[in-house]
C-alpha cells in the first residue's frame, strides 16, 4: 500500500504537464472557445505523438496498454491547463471498442485512433439525461443486413471533432452499441452552449443506416458494457476536474499572497487561510477518491461505489473550491479578460455532467444498503467484480 505516485507515475504526469504548459496557453483556450471545431488540432497532434490517444489501447492495435491510472494522470494535467483536447471521449469510446468490438472493427479503426488520426466519441444521453438504461429511447431497427437508427442524442462530447461515434440505441433485443460515421447521411446536429463553452452537441438520427458490422458486441443486453463505458467517462472526468481545480486553487493561493488589504496580504487573514485550507483538503480528497477508483478498475476490482463516491464528491466540493477561488479573487475573477473563469466555468459545467451528486449517492446507497452483510470501511461492498482491464496484474 502506497497511495502516493511512484516514479513512473510522476514521470507520466510531469511529462504531460510539461507538454501542455509549453503548448497550451490560455490564449489558445480562449480561441478554441470561439471555434466551432472545439479543439486545437496542433495540440492534439502533439499529444498523439506523445501516445496519449492510445495509452490504454492494446499494443496489437498500436496502443501502449498502460493502466487507466496513467490515463487519469494525463486527464488531470489536461484539466490543469483546461486544454481543448477531445481525449476524454476518444479514449472512452476507443477503450470500449477495444474491449467489446469485433476484430474487423478494431483492426480498421483502433490503429488510427492510437495514432491520433481518428477521433472517437460516444452518444448515450437523451432528453432524460440520467445514467440509466431506461432513458434510452433511440431505436435501431434491424433491416436487411444492417440497422436503421432513429432518435435524438444530447450532450455528445466533441461530436464536431469526432470521426466516429459509439451510439447507444435500442434494438428489439435491447440496448446495443453501434459505431457510426459522424457524417453519415440522415445525421444532423445542433450545438449546445455550455457553461464550459466546450463542445457538446445535440445529434439527430433520421433513418441513419449502419451495416451489421457497426454493431459493437452483441445486439441487446449491452447495458453492462454501456455502464462500464459511462463509469469510465465519469471517473476520467473526475481526474480532469481534480486537475482543473488544483490549478484554479493555486491561482487563489498565489493571489492571496500578493493582494493586500488592511495593510497585509489577504492570505494573512485567518478567514482566507481557512478557505484556502479547505480548498486544498477538498482537492486532495477528490484526488484520492478518484485514483483509488481508477486503481481498482486497473485491478479488475468492483469500482462502481468508488466511482460514484468520487463523482459526487467532486461535484460538490470541487465546485465549492473553485467558487471559493472566485471569492478570494474578488471583482477581478468576475472579469472576462482575467483568466480565472476559464477554470471556474469548466469545473462548474463538469460538475453537472456524468451524473449529479443525487444520482451517484443513490447508487452508493444501493450498494451499501441493498447488499447482504455488514459494511466496513476498507472492505469492498460492491456485489460483483467488474471486467478486468489489465488481466495480467494480480488482484490485491
Amino acid at each position, binding site marked *: 500500500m502506497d497511495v502516493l505516485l511512484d516514479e513512473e507515475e510522476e514521470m507520466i504526469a510531469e511529462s504531460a504537464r510539461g507538454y501542455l504548459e509549453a503548448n497550451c496557453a490560455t490564449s489558445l483556450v480562449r480561441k478554441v472557445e470561439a471555434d466551432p471545431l472545439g479543439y486545437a488540432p496542433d495540440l492534439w497532434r502533439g499529444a498523439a505523438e506523445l501516445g496519449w490517444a492510445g495509452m490504454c489501447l492494446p499494443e496489437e492495435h498500436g496502443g501502449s496498454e498502460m493502466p487507466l491510472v496513467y490515463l487519469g494522470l494525463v486527464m488531470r494535467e489536461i484539466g490543469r491547463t483546461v486544454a481543448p483536447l477531445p481525449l476524454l471521449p476518444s479514449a472512452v469510446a476507443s477503450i470500449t471498442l477495444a474491449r467489446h468490438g469485433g476484430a474487423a472493427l478494431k483492426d480498421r479503426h483502433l490503429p488510427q485512433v492510437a495514432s491520433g488520426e481518428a477521433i472517437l466519441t460516444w452518444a448515450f444521453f437523451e432528453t432524460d439525461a440520467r445514467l440509466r438504461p431506461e432513458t434510452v429511447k433511440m431505436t435501431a431497427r434491424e433491416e436487411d443486413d444492417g440497422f436503421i437508427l432513429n432518435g435524438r442524442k444530447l450532450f455528445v462530447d466533441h461530436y464536431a471533432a469526432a470521426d466516429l461515434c459509439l451510439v447507444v440505441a435500442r434494438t428489439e433485443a435491447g440496448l446495443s452499441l453501434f459505431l457510426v460515421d459522424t457524417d453519415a447521411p440522415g445525421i444532423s446536429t445542433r450545438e449546445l452552449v455550455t457553461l464550459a463553452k466546450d463542445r457538446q452537441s445535440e445529434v439527430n438520427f433520421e433513418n441513419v443506416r449502419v451495416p451489421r458490422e457497426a454493431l459493437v458486441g452483441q445486439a441487446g443486453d449491452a447495458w453492462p458494457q454501456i455502464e462500464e463505458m459511462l463509469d469510465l467517462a465519469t471517473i476520467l472526468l473526475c481526474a480532469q476536474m481534480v486537475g482543473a481545480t488544483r490549478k484554479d486553487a493555486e491561482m487563489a493561493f498565489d493571489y492571496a499572497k500578493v493582494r493586500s488589504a*488592511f495593510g497585509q496580504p489577504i492570505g494573512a487573514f485567518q478567514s482566507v487561510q481557512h478557505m484556502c485550507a479547505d480548498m486544498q483538503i477538498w482537492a486532495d480528497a477528490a484526488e484520492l477518491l478518484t485514483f483509488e477508483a481508477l486503481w481498482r478498475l486497473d485491478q479488475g476490482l468492483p469500482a462502481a461505489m468508488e466511482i460514484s463516491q468520487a463523482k459526487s464528491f467532486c461535484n460538490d466540493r470541487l*465546485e465549492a473550491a473553485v467558487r471559493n477561488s472566485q471569492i478570494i479573487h474578488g471583482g477581478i475573477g468576475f472579469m472576462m479578460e482575467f483568466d480565472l473563469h476559464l477554470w471556474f466555468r469548466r469545473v462548474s459545467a463538469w460538475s453537472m455532467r456524468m451524473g449529479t451528486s443525487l444520482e451517484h449517492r443513490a447508487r452508493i446507497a444501493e450498494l451499501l444498503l441493498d447488499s447482504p452483510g455488514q459494511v466496513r470501511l476498507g472492505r469492498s461492498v460492491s456485489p460483483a467484480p467488474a471486467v478486468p482491464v489489465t488481466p495480467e496484474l494480480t488482484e490485491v
Partner: protein
Amino acid sequence: MNFGYSPEQEALRSEVQTFIRDNVTDELVEEMDIHSGTDRPRGRGPLGQALYRQIGERGWLGIAYPSEYGGQGGSRIDQYIVEEEFLRAGIQISMIGSGAPAILAAGTEEQKRYYIPRLIRGEVSFCLGFTEPHAGADLANLRCSAVRDGDEFVINGQKMYTTSAHVSTHIYLMARTDRTASKHKGISIFIFPMDTPGLTVRPLWTIQNNPSAPKFTTYGAARTNEVFFDDVRIPASALLGEENDGWRVGSMGLNLDRVGAGRYLISVRRDEDIINFLKSDEALGARLSESEVVRDKVAELWTEAQVCRLMTMRSMSIVERGGAFSYEGSAEKVWAPEHGVRISESIMQMLGPHGSLLRGSPHSVQDGLYAHNVMGSFQSGINHGSVQIMRDQVARRGLGMPSSRGNKAAGVK
C-alpha cells in the same frame, strides 16, 4: 410583534401589481436594464420617463423621503413594498441608491433641493465611484485624488468596477483630499455630472457576457466599467459634507444599501423559480418534484429563503422605528448572499447537464437562468462588503468581540 402588513399596505401592493400588469412592457424593461452591455444615452429613455411620470403621479416615488424635497414623507415599509413589486417585474425604481440618504444627512440645503427631487424623479442617477484597483475590500486604501485649486477641485486617478457608469448621469465619488492624513481621514465625497470634461468611462466585460444573462440572474450584468479622471475640474460645491470627512459620509449610505428589497430578492428569486419549475409540467421539473431528496433540499432552502425575508423585515422594522443597526444589516449581508450560493449550487445537482446550458442554447432550462446564476451568485458575497468583513462586524459590533492585536496596531476597527 406583527409579521403582517396593514390592510392599507396590502392594498398598496395590489395597486402596484395591477399597475405593473397594465403598464410594464418588455420594451420598457429592456430599456431600463442598466446591465446589458449596450451603450445607450445616459439617464432615462423615453419609456422610462413616461413610467416615472405615471408612478410619480401615484405618489409612489420617494415615499419615505421628506415632502419638502419631492418625497411623500411616508413609511419606509410602504416604499419597500413598491420597490419589491417593481423589482419583481425587473425594474429597479429605487435607483436612489446610496446617494440620497447621505445627501439628506450631510448635504447642503442647496444640494438637497437640487438632487433629492431629481433622484426621486429618476432624472439623476448616481454611479458609485468607490472601488479602485488597490482599494476593494480595503476601501480606505484609495488613491484617486482631489486637490483644491481655489473654488475648484482637480481630480486625478482611476475607479474600477463602477457599475452603471455608462448610463448614470452623475457620479458619487470618494477621493483622497489629504495625503498626509491617516488612511481613513483625508477622504472626501463629491457628486457631479458624468459629462464633466476629463472623465472617461471604459467598459469592463464580465463573465456574464457572451451570451448575456437572462433577466433576474443574480449579478447578471454583462458589463461594469472603469472610470478615469484626468485633471477633472469640479466646483467646490460638488463636495458632499465636510472636506476630509468622506469616510463617515460615505459609510452612511452603505448600510442601507445592504438591506432592502434588492439585496433580498437577488438572494431568493431562485428559490421561488426552482419550486415553480418543479411544479410546472416540464418533464424535468415534474420528474424531480417526485424525488424525496430534491423535496428535502428545496424545503431546506425555502426555509433559508424565509430567513432572508424575515431578516429584511427586521431591518425594515428597525429603520421604521428610527433605530440604527448594530449588526443586523451585516447579518443579513452574510446570510442572504451565502444562501444565494447554496440555492444556486444545489440546483446544479438537481438539474444535471441541462442546468449547464447558457442563454440561447437548445435545451437550456429557463433560458439558462440557473447556469448564468452559477456565475453570479457568489458575487453577492463579495460586493458592498464581503461576507468575511460582514461576519467580522457582526462579531465586533454586535457581540463586542475584541479586535485582533494585529488589526489594533493598524488602526482597523
